[in-house]
């Protein structure tokens, strides 16, 4: 059986994490291709319903990339998202879904290498957890 390749939906803030992902690309950094990036205007725009929708629709994990504390383009968007994801993870755990499947990371526009590392780590962790969907998210 081929190795399980997790599917990740990555919501990336355009001011930091998405730019960091671009930098990882233009720097020709090597990292696993498992994350499907969705650029959003702010990590604070990411609604818990989107995260859950992604999990329901076949993702094995969801990554939210936001600005480092103090750097939010909209001042407090990343703080709101931090609190939301904190509570969402608690609720997922109570339902029996590993909270590690939802990951919030601070990645600045200059941190291309960090973006690559975060994706690599997340893929490794999801491989350890196994597929969320019985069929490995395919179908």
């Amino acid at each position, binding site marked *: 059986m081929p190795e399980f390749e997790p599917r990740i939906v990555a919501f990336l803030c355009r001011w930091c994490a998405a730019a960091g992902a671009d930098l990882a690309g233009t720097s020709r950094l090597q990292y696993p291709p498992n994350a499907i990036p969705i650029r959003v205007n702010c990590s604070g725009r990411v609604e818990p319903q989107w995260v859950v929708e992604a999990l329901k629709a076949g993702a094995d994990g969801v990554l939210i990339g936001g600005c480092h504390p103090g750097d939010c383009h909209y001042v407090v968007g990343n703080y709101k998202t931090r*609190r939301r994801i904190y509570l969402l993870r608690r609720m997922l755990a109570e*339902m029996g879904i590993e909270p590690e499947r939802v990951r919030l990371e601070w990645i600045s526009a200059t941190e291309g290498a960090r973006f690559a590392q975060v994706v690599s780590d997340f893929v490794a962790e999801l491989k350890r957890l*196994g597929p969320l969907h019985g069929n490995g998210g395919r179908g």
Partner: protein
Amino acid sequence: MKLAVYWTGSCGGCDVSFLELGMGLLEVLSRVEIVFWPALVDAKRRDLERLPARSVDVTLVNGVIRTAENKEMVEILREKSKFLGAYGACAHLGGIPALANQVNGVTEIVFGPGFRPGAPLGEAAEDAPPELLPEALSLDEVVPVDFVVPGCPPPAGLIARFFEAAFAEAISPGRIFAGEKALCEECPRTREDRRLTRIVRPHEVQPDPEKCLLDQGIICLGPVTRAGCGAACPKGGMPCTGCLGPTPKAGDPALAMLSALASLVRAGEEGESAFPEENKILDSLVDPIGTLYKYSFAKYGRPLLKLARKRQEVRA
């Protein structure tokens, strides 16, 4: 108008709620012919089975679908009815009984290991309790539902609105007899703080009678719940727990409320140093599923729960 009212997994409060119409009930009763209503008139399943298909104008089902018998009965009612509606929060969204879905194998826990739902008790096989379904379901998971009269139980104003539409033969398919806007729109309490510095349960405080309950740290689901009851609970000093179901805009009421709640939490100046205190406030939300999905767990929690169950099976 030929009317049927049936209860499935129900507390009986929905059947009683019609009395809320007061004198209006007399007019309703003068205009309906009750063909089946176990709480009110004696009729058995075989009487219902004898009715021709689509001979009942309107059927109201209250309660959650919990047993095989519940399922069979609503399937018969569906066949006999022109219009079939979910009446009350349980039929609409699963209601409080559906919170049991959180626990896998609930019958084993309650009745002991080896319990088989539907197993005959002694010799009297025909007296066997009906088989329990693996999970509690909202009505629309079992049969197509034409309309909803929501609430726990439905408030008088909405019941009246429903009968008005029914008598005028103007029940549009898919209609939910409640407001589209949030409950806050009809709540007389005033909103000031817009920040949550603590979370408390209703019994822990004596709330200020004028101020928004959410501002006072009491989890009130008004922002994500349909208007239509005149904000009866907040007026009485109790928070809205979401019985009328989510507004069309809210979507999943628990996740929408979780989002709103987390935005409001503050522990002093926002910033990295406040994170531990913010977490403490968020941790003090007792039973997030039971609080935020109080009535809607069967409907909205189901897809995630299914995933979790599958994971459990894979791991086992």
